[in-house]
Each structure stands twice: as C-alpha cells, then as structure tokens.
C-alpha cells in the first residue's frame, strides 16, 4: 500500500511539450510511472516520447482514462490548467508550476473542493511511491521502498532528508512535496490522516518551515487523530521577520509563523523535532522503536 499514487495510477501531463514538461515526462516514464497522455493546446495528435498528445484534458481523459494530472504550464496559466483537470474528472492534480498568483489558487482550491478533486502544490516537486510511481520532478535514485511516510513544504531539503533516511536504511511508503505557497492543495492534516490509514506507513515525517500556522494546526491534529509516531523538522530558525525566504509562503509576519513557535507546538505534544537534518534518521528510528 501507499497513499495517493501507485503503479496503477494513470498519469496525464499538462504542458507535455514544454521544456520542463517533456524533460520530466521522460524521467517519470523511465521510472516506470504509467504516463498515458499529454495535453498541449494546438499540438493534439502529436506524440511526445511515444505518449499521445491532446488539445484538451477532456479529450485526453476520454481517450486514455487518465485519473491523475501533473501540470508544467507557466505560472500565469496554471490556475486554469488545474481547473481544466478538475472539470474533466481528474482525481488528483499535481501542480509543479512556481509563481502561481494566490487569487488563482483561491479560485482553484475552492472549485476543487466542490468537485472533490485532490490537489498537490502548486510550487511543489510532486510525490513518489518508491518502486511504483513518481509524479513530479523528484530525483528517484535517493528513494527506497519502506515504511516512512513523508510530507514536506520544500524540495531539495526533502531530497537531503530522504537521502539521510535511505542511507540509514529507512525506506519510504510515499513522499509528498506539498509545496511552498501560502494557498496550496493537500496539506499536513489530510496527508497525516492518509498516512494514518495506510497500512504500509509506520512512522510519519513532517518537514515544515516558517510562515503561517499550518504546523501548529498539524500538531493539534496529531494530538487528536494520529496514533502513529510523527517526527518533525522545521526550516528557517534564522529567518528574519517580513522577508519571503524563497518560497512565497515562507514568511514570518509580525511575530507569527516563526520556527520557534512551530517547534514548541510539536514538542508540546511529544512530537520530536530534529534540530539539524542529520538528526532525523535517529529520531525516526527511536520513534519506531518506542511505539506501542
């Protein structure tokens, strides 16, 4: 088992003929991801790395039965692409595009909620169920099948964390990059519940960062609903107030959204927080050993 995706997931790539879209499509395909279709308006009828390209998501879904979509279109068009995927009946949308206007995400997330479509991102590296399916831009070599469920607001930091886990013999069930934007799709709460419900996952790693209060809310949710052990890391302990640290959502606004608050929230409910990335594997091992 795993969460969200597995080897049967039928993937559609929106923006498949673009530079990033075509590059990562080939990478995904090479990993074994079941990429069934691409969409690129005006390029319907072409083939990209053997994958049929359609003008609209509706056409692609009708022709191939794709149930999951990954979006590589430029940020100004990403909100529309998310809506198109949802309207065409896609179940899970992964938006890689960085720089999507927040109000576009407000509109998109609101619509997807009504339609029951799940979204990951925008501004995220995607997700992977090691050995089965990778939908995103993740470096597949560092992942290994196992029982750690991981979610993170960051990209390369996640790769570092996953490397450390894998090198310590800790494989992963599913790793989800939830993205660095203030308004995004699936977040800690939903993913915590999915990992809780996933038999393969035995321990959950949550990698947060400054900005907003999602980590505090996650702590509350863990306290009330999660029985599996959780280990956390929070980036940005040295970030100044009022500056966006690379991610649009990583900003401390007048005294709220600091790493210290988030770390305190987790530790208050008994979730260990690694102070440095290198501490993570041991904390995970300890959590596994300590669990009832």
């Amino acid at each position: 088992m795993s969460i969200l995706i597995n080897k049967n997931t039928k993937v559609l790539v929106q923006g498949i003929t673009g530079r990033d879209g075509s590059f990562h499509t080939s990478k995904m395909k090479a990993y074994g991801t079941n990429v069934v279709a691409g969409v690129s308006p005006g390029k319907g009828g072409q083939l990209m790395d053997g994958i049929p390209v359609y003008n609209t998501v509706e056409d692609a879904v009708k022709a191939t039965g794709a149930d999951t979509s990954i979006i590589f279109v430029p940020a100004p068009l990403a909100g529309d692409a998310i809506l198109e995927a949802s309207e065409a009946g896609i179940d899970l949308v992964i938006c890689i595009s960085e720089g999507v206007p927040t109000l576009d995400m407000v509109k998109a997330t609101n619509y997807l909620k009504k339609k029951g479509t799940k979204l990951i991102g925008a501004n995220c590296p995607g997700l992977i169920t090691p050995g089965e399916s990778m939908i995103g831009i993740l470096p597949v070599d560092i992942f290994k099948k196992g029982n750690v469920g991981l979610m993170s607001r960051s990209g390369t930091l996640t790769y570092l964390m996953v490397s450390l886990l894998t090198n310590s013999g800790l494989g992963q069930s599913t790793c989800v990059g939830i993205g660095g934007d203030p308004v995004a799709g699936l977040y800690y709460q939903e993913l915590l519940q999915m990992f809780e419900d996933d038999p393969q996952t035995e321990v959950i790693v949550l990698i947060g960062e400054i900005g907003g209060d999602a980590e505090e809310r996650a702590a509350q949710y863990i306290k009330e609903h999660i029985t599996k052990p959780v280990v956390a890391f929070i980036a940005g302990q040295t970030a100044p107030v009022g500056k966006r640290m690379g991610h649009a959502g990583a900003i401390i606004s007048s005294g709220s959204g600091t790493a210290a608050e988030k770390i305190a929230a987790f530790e208050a409910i008994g979730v260990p927080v690694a102070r440095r990335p290198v501490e993570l594997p041991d904390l995970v091992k300890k959590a596994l050993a300590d669990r009832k």
Partner: protein
Amino acid sequence: MKIHEYQSKEIFSRYSILVTNETVCYSTEEVVKATEELGLPVVVKAQVHAGGRGKAGGVKLARTMEEAKNAAHSILGMDIKGYKVEKVLVAQGVKFNSEFYVGLTIDRNSKSVIFMASSEGGVEIEEVAKDNPDAIHKFVIDPDLGMTAFLARKIAFKLFTDFALVKQAVDLFQKLYQIFLDTDASLVEINPLVVTDDGKLLALDGKMNFDDNALFRQPKIAALDEPTEDEKKEIAAKESGLTYIRLDGTIGCMVNGAGLAMASMDVIKYFGGNPANFLDIGGSSNPQKVITAMNLLLSDKNVKVIMINIFGGITRCDDVAKGLIIALDQMKVDIPIVIRLSGTNAEEGLRIISEHNLPTVNSLSEAAQEAIRLANN
C-alpha cells in the same frame, strides 16, 4: 510588494472611499506650502515601508506652522527600522469620535480571502491579536459569492449600531474587497477607520501589500514599487533566477533550494555562526548563475567566508561542480570557500572540486563548523 500609505489612499480614492485631504512632500519647504494649502492642524507622517512609524516618532500632529516645520525637519531623513524617510505625507487634521480597524488578507487555512474587523482601531492590530483576540472579528469570504451585501452588513453590525454607519460600511467593505481582487493584493488595511464628527466613515491611514506572483498582470501596481538598496539587490538577483536576502552575519551562503538554504543557515546558527544571507541558486548548474551569486556574496563587505551547500537531485553534482569551477576560474575570490556536495553524483563532483584544490567537506554540519572557524580567523 509594499506601497506607501499615500499610494494606498490614492487607490482607495479611486474607488470613492473617503480619505483625508493630503499632500506628499519631499522637503520642509513643501511641507510648509502643503500646510498653508490644507490649513492647520495637519499631521505629518513618514512614508516608509516599515510598521511602527508612530512609536519611532515618524508621525507628528502640528497645530501651528512652527510645529509643522519642526515635524518635517525631524521626520525627513529619519531612519525607521533601516528605512530612511525621504518623504512625508501632510494630511489635514480630521475631527473624529471613534476608531476602527478593517483589513483583508489571505487566510491559508480556509484558502480564501478573509475580512478582519475590530472596534479597537488606531493601535497595532498585532497587539490586539495578542492581548484581546476576541476583539477581532474574522469572516471568510466565499470566493463564489464575494463580498455580498449581506456579509458586509453582518460585519458592519459588529462594529456599528447606527444604521447610517452600517450602510456606509457595507459600501466601503464591498469596495475594499473589489480593490483586493482588482489589484491582486495580499493585504488591504484601514487602521484607523474613523467616524468623523459629521458622521462619515473616513480612512485615516491605509496600507496595501501585493502578491508578487501576480505583478505580471498588475503593471500599474508594479509601477508603484520603490525598492530600497537591499531590495534592489534582491530584485536583480530574482531576475537572474536567484533568491537573495541579505542578513547581518559573516558567513555567505550559496545553496540550491529554499528549504535547504534555510536549513543550512539554521545549522550555521546551531554551531554558533551567523549567516550573512539567504541565497537560493535554484536547480541550475549554469556557471553564469554561480558567478552572479558569487558577486552578490562578495558585494557584502561583512562576508568573511563562503559556504556552498548543494544537494544534487535532478541536477547532478558533477555538473554543478563543473559550473562552480568555471565560475571560480573566471573571478577573483579572496576569501575562503567551503564546499559541500551531496546527492546525485556527489562523489564525482567532489573529485572535480578537489582536483582544483578547493576545500570540500562531507556533511552540512562539518561545512558549517569549518565556515565558522574560517570566519572567526
């Protein structure tokens, strides 16, 4: 992106929201002239992109021309939280009998625009949020409905009992939401919103921030940007595909990825060092980007050592190493560099770097400790 109070109020005015009569001035002479035109009393207010102007002495009431002159003199050129005051707003004094707070922002949790209103206006809302959170009413705006009249009324009844004010407030709240949408704002605030002696709602102060991701479709808003010198550097970096934020430490950091960059700074701090900056060079191995990044780091005279931390993902470490070597070959770097590579093809990358006699280390902790040692030399 932030704009000044007077710019926010110009936008409010365009939507027929009542604001004070006011003039922007760049010199004491202009302040005198503006005061003559507006009539005494006036309020002289520093126009800087920083909160807490009042506490810093950047807002002064002038009942006489002499006071106006003195206020201009003391405020112009003042430094508020690192921002130099280059202009002041001279606003006609207004008689009012109550102060409120209203604001719109994005709520991450509900993934919607949220309207905040409080009867405790005129003080910093963050303080109200801490001391008396119940005094702030929050309303999530359904994106499908927008600011309906009934929602605006519901909010207005929380602030006012006089129905004439409720009706004005309904109109005002609907306009503020429209402004928020029309400008791709991330914050729209009136604090205080006052009830004037003749029963009108008036925006005594105004504040707007904007979504940087949406500036491409907001050319009029983008044109209002007035970056400081540091911010200009950040913008220039952005245009080269880098995210750079200057801090006040001594260890220059160059990292790929925002989360990793923050974590690297944190590790430096953990071992007692001080990062000089946040610098995310993104996912590229392009030597030009490395050169630009290096130049940014070297332009900061506080920087004593450079710590490079790269995690190869899709980008391979050997490619990044080659980029680094080419970049370092093309420029003179006279401070020490500590390089840490890991992830895809890290071994090959480290070999390339070692061949060029550059110091490499094996872990982030080691890199941080070595950088601190070199910075303290």
